[in-house]
């Protein structure tokens, strides 16, 4: 049962992630996607004049799916885990050293992502502004890494190719040009 506790290599995780596409289709003709759950939370609580086109009623499955992902994160991150640092490449480790990140255990660096950090500019940028960008961007793009990056690309949809390329261009530009200044705050 060791494999349940050890981190999985990309050639195990990748195909399993890809299999979510047919599983959801075969169960109920549902399209893999997670960012729609953000839109639907809005349509739960906000007048439909603003959220028109984002009706939640036919999409309750989304909330169950998202809730499941949370439970899956609990099982994978707290129950079936060895709590060992992620085995990133030597260059990336050296980079983390160079920015003064002492503790690289867990899934996120606890010294950057914690409740006290919210009161600092650095933490506010990473957690609050970062989250805002994720929600704003995926709503405008009408999809995220799951809906465009996995499902859309699998279905050979060219808008999804443009979206996925743009996810990476945005992430790469930000990581190289702006993030270093935020991490140095």
């Amino acid at each position, binding site marked *: 049962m060791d494999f349940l506790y050890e981190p999985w290599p990309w050639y195990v995780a990748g195909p399993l992630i890809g299999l979510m596409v047919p599983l959801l289709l075969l169960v109920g003709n549902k399209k893999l996607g997670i960012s729609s759950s953000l839109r639907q939370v809005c349509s739960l609580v906000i007048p439909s004049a603003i959220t028109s086109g984002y009706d939640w009623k036919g999409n309750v499955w989304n909330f169950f799916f998202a809730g499941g992902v*949370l439970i899956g994160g*609990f099982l994978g991150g707290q129950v079936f885990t060895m709590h060992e640092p992620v085995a990133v490449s030597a260059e990336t480790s050296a980079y983390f050293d160079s920015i003064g990140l002492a503790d690289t255990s867990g*899934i996120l660096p606890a010294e950057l992502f914690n409740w006290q950090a919210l009161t600092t500019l650095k933490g506010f940028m990473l957690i609050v502004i970062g989250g805002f960008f*994720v929600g704003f*961007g995926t709503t405008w793009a009408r999809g995220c890494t799951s809906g*465009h990056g996995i499902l859309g690309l699998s279905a050979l949809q060219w*808008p999804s190719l443009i979206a996925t390329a743009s996810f990476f261009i945005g992430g790469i530009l930000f990581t190289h040009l702006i993030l270093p200044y935020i991490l140095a705050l």
Partner: protein
Amino acid sequence: MKNLTYLFLGVIFGFVLTKGEAISWYRIQEMFHFQGFHMYGIFMTAVPTGALSLLIIKGMKLRAANGELISMPRKEYSPGVVFGSLIFGFGWALTGACPGPIYAQIGAGYGVVIVTLLSAILGAFAFMLISAGFPRLKTA
């Protein structure tokens, strides 16, 4: 009952994302710095697996368990596909999370990520508010 099936599939998805370290801020940094193959390997194996599955479903004209003929996903192009995606990329670099991993990170014990989630919901709301004022944003 049906919804419990989606909950179960979500559990599998969240578990695989977590074991595959796709929800790790460290892995996302490694990816955006082009210093490791791990995340690229995940995409390069997930997409062909999904594509092959779709070909099989289409070829065999399979029906979903509820009897519906399976419809193939169609994605519309709009300027948001470029600009929204770029903004999401910024957020991905900051948080180390796409929307799916946000939920998984919370489950994995990082309580403060609840703030990331609330902020993401606020971001989604902000876009809706703007696009309600400027309807062309949504359709153009």
